[in-house]
């Protein structure tokens, strides 16, 4: 078991490097560097930057170095002192802007994951046990519908319904008075009253595939002899289901975290932008639009790292549950 975890952890190192390099290349993709953008921004407000200042800025940020040297410096800054560079638009270190938003992104992702499970598990089991019943068909239809509605559209429609029917404003994660307040119990409660909407939206679009996985797994297990044996022993139907076939059917469920998480985070980006949540996504979009590339790069790097860690956790969990995998 330890050997498996060790191997899996070792594998994280090249993956994280690949991700960081990818994020860095993405930073470098737009034509021009950020000094050119800076000059353009200042020129727009009728300020003139002379050539000397531009050269000084370039030197300060090492923008004339070769790509790999720049990458090395960037990575060194992050690894040695958590320095992600300077956000251009905000005129302050990137590290000061990202952490709270990343934390909320994580909270949103985990809450959505839990909600997805909470919805998919009982529905999947129900659909398998009552195969071809009206309920089964209804849930199948629902899951195909959830798969087909883009999450931002769902967010828009729910916002529309909330605004027109209930006159409520459902954007954001906090009420106005808590937005800048320090963390407290009251702020947590306030978060809970807001977070359900994005969580529901994300869960609806991701439960679809999970319901089908769960249903198929249960259908494979239900006709097996051990189920008949348990039933013959007089176990109640509920106890029988939860004690034997469900536990086996849950197995591939865990492995789905690995691909569910990237999907959830992808989806949360769009939903967060539509609902204007204080997570990483709206700031990322803004940074990309303004070509504030260090900020954007930090977000891309952290979001990708988050999903890699998610798949690491799911692999370890799976190995803990299923001995066949760790022996492989």
């Amino acid at each position, binding site marked *: 078991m330890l050997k498996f975890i060790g191997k899996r952890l070792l*594998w994280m190192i090249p*993956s994280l490097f*690949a*991700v960081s390099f*990818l*994020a860095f290349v*993405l930073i470098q*993709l*737009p*034509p021009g560097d950020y000094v050119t953008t800076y000059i353009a921004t200042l020129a727009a407000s009728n300020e003139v930057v002379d050539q000397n200042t531009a050269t000084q800025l370039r030197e300060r940020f090492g923008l004339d170095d070769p790509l790999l040297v720049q990458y090395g410096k960037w990575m060194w800054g992050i690894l040695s002192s958590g320095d992600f560079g300077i956000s251009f638009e905000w005129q302050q270190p990137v590290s000061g802007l990202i952490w709270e938003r990343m934390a909320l992104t994580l909270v949103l992702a985990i809450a959505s994951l839990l909600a997805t499970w909470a919805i998919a598990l009982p529905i999947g089991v129900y659909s398998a046990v009552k195969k071809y019943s009206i309920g089964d068909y209804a849930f199948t239809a629902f899951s*195909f*519908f959830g*798969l*087909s*509605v*883009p*999450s*931002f*559209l769902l967010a*828009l*429609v729910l*916002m*529309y319904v909330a*605004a*027109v029917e209930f006159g409520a404003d459902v954007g954001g994660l906090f009420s106005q008075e808590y937005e800048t307040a320090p963390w407290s119990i009251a702020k947590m409660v306030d978060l809970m009253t807001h977070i359900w909407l994005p969580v529901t939206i994300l869960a609806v679009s991701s439960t679809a595939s999970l319901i089908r996985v769960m249903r198929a797994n249960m259908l494979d297990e239900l006709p097996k002899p051990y189920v008949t044996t348990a039933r013959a022993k007089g176990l109640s139907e509920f106890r029988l289901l939860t004690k034997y076939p469900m536990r086996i059917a849950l197995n591939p469920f865990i492995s789905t975290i*690995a*691909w569910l*998480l*990237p*999907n959830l*985070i*992808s*989806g949360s*980006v*769009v939903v967060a*932008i*539509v609902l204007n949540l204080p997570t990483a*996504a709206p700031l*990322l*979009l803004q940074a*990309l*639009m303004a*070509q504030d590339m260090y900020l*954007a790069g930090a*977000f*891309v790097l952290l*979001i*990708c790292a988050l*999903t*890699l860690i998610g*798949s690491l956790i799911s692999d370890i969990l799976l190995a803990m549950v299923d001995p066949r995998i760790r022996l492989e």
Partner: protein
Amino acid sequence: MVDAAITNIQPDRAAVASQWQLIWWAFKRHKLAMISLWITVAMYIVALVPGFFAINDPVAQNARATFSPPQRIHLFDTSNGFSIGPYFHPMKLTRDPQTLAAIFVEDTTKKVPIQFFGRGYEYSVLGLFNSNVHLLASSDPSRPLFLFGADRLGRDVYSRVVQGAQISLSIGLVGVFISLMLGIILGGISGYYGGRIDFFMQRVIDFVLSLPTIPIWLAMAAALPQGWPATMQYMMITIILSLTGWAQLARVVRGRFLSLRTEEFVAAARLDGVSEGRIIFRHMLPSFSSHIIASVTLAVPAMILAETSLSFLGLGLQPPTISWGVLLREAQNIRSIATAPWLFMPGAAVVVAVMALNLLGDGLRDAADPYNK
């Protein structure tokens, strides 16, 4: 189920039927998938000649029709005796006496008949020739028919949705085609050679699959220069979408290659001295092409959703290009959708298209392997 499909037909017919015949028989039993097939075909026909199905010029602005609501089509006229034939009432613009806000009322005193195959604005058919015949046309050009209402600039939402189908549906196909090429080459190499190459490719595929796609697409799309012509934008967006889309297909191809590599007929071909290329393309590819088609069908809706999301966020296609995602940008703020909920119509088109393609792909996947089960 497939057994049933085959035994329902005479057994001797099933014995001599080709693989594709068997797949078709199995597929036909899927009611939902069959309906989806027809919907998909119909939508792609619309996407092929959107001009014919549109009513008004999708780019024409009409200041007097800003946020004009959808008009109902009446089939029977009972106001003056009885007559059959579709017509609509033109909208009359009035103003709220207090707020001066525009209010549209159906002017029931006037009737405008709708013509089939009537004349309207001129459009180009696939760039080959021009035509001005439309499936539906208002008989009075000064009183346009807004089937799904009009947007902020008084443009016809229905015609724009129809026009948007061309870009949105084709981007799915083109994107999947590029992904498929990458997937077949990389997945094929991985599955055919196995060993260390396979191990390495598997890690790369795992890596690509573990990345959240939307932030990466956003970052790549943000790097595109703003002033590019529409066709270049279109190509770049498709390529961006394919760069992450190939991994899923590569995995399917690899899995199939691995399982087929040990089949007797491949071994037999190899012992007969058939060249590698011919084994792959003549012997292996036909036997898993049905699976590939099913996976591809399931990849198209994902691409459509991706393009819609990107364009919606403002980093995909840019107006004046018309795609469903671009159209949904109009529905971005709560104010405009509160006054004009019909701006959601492009969203309905997305949902129908994606649902039909998903169900179609699902049916194909179930029917793809007529020999198993």
